[in-house]
């Protein structure tokens, strides 16, 4: 009976095409939403991995180095470096600031010690070695050699790195520790955290060790509402897609009531009719999902915030699309099953 279902799709191809286009757009939006959500999590993972510390040492009671404003004296670095289990220790200053030149942009600033733990990866140029130098994320579209003004300091770009963002895609600038202290603490010798290579077994009093996982979880906390909202919107989009598919299948079942009656009167079992409608729902879902993949690829670069769509998201899209299609077609299937074969005897 699949022949009838496929022929019906061909016969009503204009409506089918419109439904596929609308459903594909909805599916593409769910893919983009999944991409946003993935980017939020992956950029956090990336920044923690880039620093590459085994431990993050902060003032006791601090929830995390990125989210809290507590500080420790820079001298703490030596005490931590001397702790058993620690190979190397370096101070970091983490702050959120603004770039005013060449254009106004929000930026994350990380002050670090050259040659220490937490050195940034370099895509082009080199890492800052002296005060007044900066390494900027490519998202800022600043070339090596350009001057930038951040937090009231004039800096010279000596290198770029790629994909180092956090807080909803805000690009990161790496500067020498002193420059960051000047921006954040008016030059006081304070630091936000001490990162180590090797894990300290004990720490001086008043300090606390955080694992990279704890740092990541802490950094994700402010994003929780954002990701929940994205998940909610994704769910609404799935429901919208289900509504489109369901209404098309139900409409098809309504229009084909007489056909179903004829088929039943001539001995076609209910299972054949249900299978035919379910097949239409699946074809509609899969075609829409395939088109959605193409649409998402085309639309993703248009968004200013990075959209990372992983292969798993595509696999999930097809699986959910088929489930949504089948679920949405239930009303149509029930309608087909309830058709009285005696209707076939009616007039035109």
């Amino acid at each position, binding site marked *: 009976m699949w022949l009838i279902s496929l022929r019906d799709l061909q016969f009503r191809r204009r409506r089918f095409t419109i439904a596929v286009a609308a459903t594909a757009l909805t599916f593409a939006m769910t893919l983009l939403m999944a991409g946003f959500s993935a980017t939020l999590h992956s950029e956090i993972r990336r920044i923690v991995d880039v620093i590459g510390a085994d431990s993050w040492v902060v003032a006791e009671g601090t929830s995390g180095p990125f989210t809290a404003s507590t500080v420790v004296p820079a001298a703490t670095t030596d005490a931590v470096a001397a702790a058993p289990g620690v190979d190397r220790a370096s101070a970091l200053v983490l702050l959120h600031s603004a770039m005013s030149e060449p254009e106004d942009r929000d930026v994350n600033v990380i002050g670090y010690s050259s040659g220490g733990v937490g050195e940034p990866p370099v895509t082009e140029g080199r890492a800052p070695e002296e005060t007044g130098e900066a390494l900027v994320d490519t998202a800022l579209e600043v070339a090596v050699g350009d001057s930038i003004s951040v937090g009231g300091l004039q800096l010279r770009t000596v290198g770029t790195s790629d994909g180092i963002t956090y807080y909803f895609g805000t690009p990161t600038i790496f500067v020498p520790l002193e420059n960051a202290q000047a921006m954040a603490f008016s030059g006081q010798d304070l630091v936000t955290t001490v990162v180590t290579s090797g894990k300290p077994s004990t720490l001086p009093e008043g300090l606390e060790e955080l694992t990279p996982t704890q740092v990541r979880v802490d950094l994700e906390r402010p994003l929780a509402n954002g990701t929940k909202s994205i998940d909610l919107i994704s769910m609404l989009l799935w429901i919208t897609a289900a509504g489109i598919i369901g209404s098309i299948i139900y409409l098809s079942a309504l229009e084909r009531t007489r056909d179903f009656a004829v088929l039943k*009167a*001539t001995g076609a079992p209910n299972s*054949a009719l249900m299978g035919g409608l379910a097949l239409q729902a699946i074809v509609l879902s899969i075609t829409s999902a395939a088109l959605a993949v193409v649409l998402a690829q085309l639309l993703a670069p248009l968004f200013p915030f990075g959209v990372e769509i992983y292969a798993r998201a595509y696999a999930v899209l097809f699986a959910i699309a088929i489930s949504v299609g089948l679920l949405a077609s239930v009303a149509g299937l029930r309608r087909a099953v309830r058709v009285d074969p005696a209707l076939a005897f009616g007039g035109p």
Partner: protein
Amino acid sequence: MDLVIEDLTVEYASGGYVVCPIENLSLEVSSGELVLLLGPSGCGKTTLFSVLAGILQPASGSVRFRDTVVNDLGGSALTHYRRSTVGIVFQAFNLIPSLTALENVQVPLLAAKVPRREAGPRAETLLTQVGLADRMAHRPGDLSGGQQQRVAIARALAHNPPLLLADEPTAHLDYIQVEGILRLLRELATSGRVVVVATHDERLLPLADRIVEMSPRVAARERPPEHLVLSSGDIIFKQGDPGERIYVVWNGEIELLRRREDGTNLVMERLRSGRYFGELSPIFGLPRSMTARAATNAVVTGYTVTDFRRQVGAPSMDDLILGADVRLQDEPPEAIEAMGDGH
């Protein structure tokens, strides 16, 4: 006999009331015979087809085709019967618009899980047999009414059924197309099938070996008035009876009842002296839509439509149909009055 219908009564619910389009019908048909079910719309032709196709269960009686008692079938046996024993040519063709003629004929075969490599040649043979060898790839929308009817017949013959039901096969065809379809139906019967054709078209009468009038016609003939002296509870006519007369209530009360789905009767109207009832049935030749029963001792007189119009001063047919109040010109005959008094 191949098809035996015994004392068949079919009832179904419609709008909460019971309708009984077929009552105590008996019929025997042999292979090779073409039976014409003749009657107007609503007389039960399609209902009988539904029973013969195993779609509707009768209230009583039985339908037997060869060794199969159709009304005893259920589940897969019924599905098998519908597939292999009965072929149906539906009114308005009922072809699937998205399929070609060839695919439409294949549908019953594919539904029965016949492989496509067998269903295709079989469908081609049937379409060739009905004269559509050159129209196989056309969709119904591209075929004339007569061609669509031929496709419908080919589809009905897909499983080579020994019983063929054709519902109003000429209803949507012009006279040129009708000729071909009638010849085809006759050929199908002659080749050893039982062919049952439902129609209201009396031009088909010469086609039939046997004619069943589903709605016996009441000749509009002159009859003397029928005076009835009734005791409380006496029935004047029953729902479903053929209608011949319009009744006038001279004294007592008459109630009009309609049978409900749950088996109880609902009093639709209660009529006193000077009122009339039962006018639509004889005017339109319809079965009685309600039962008339004496609610008290009563005296009524039944008139033919012509007599009734004379009795009430020849009101227009519109007045009668619309149930307008009419003024009876005559007093009840003395004999009737006396009978009523004596009650």
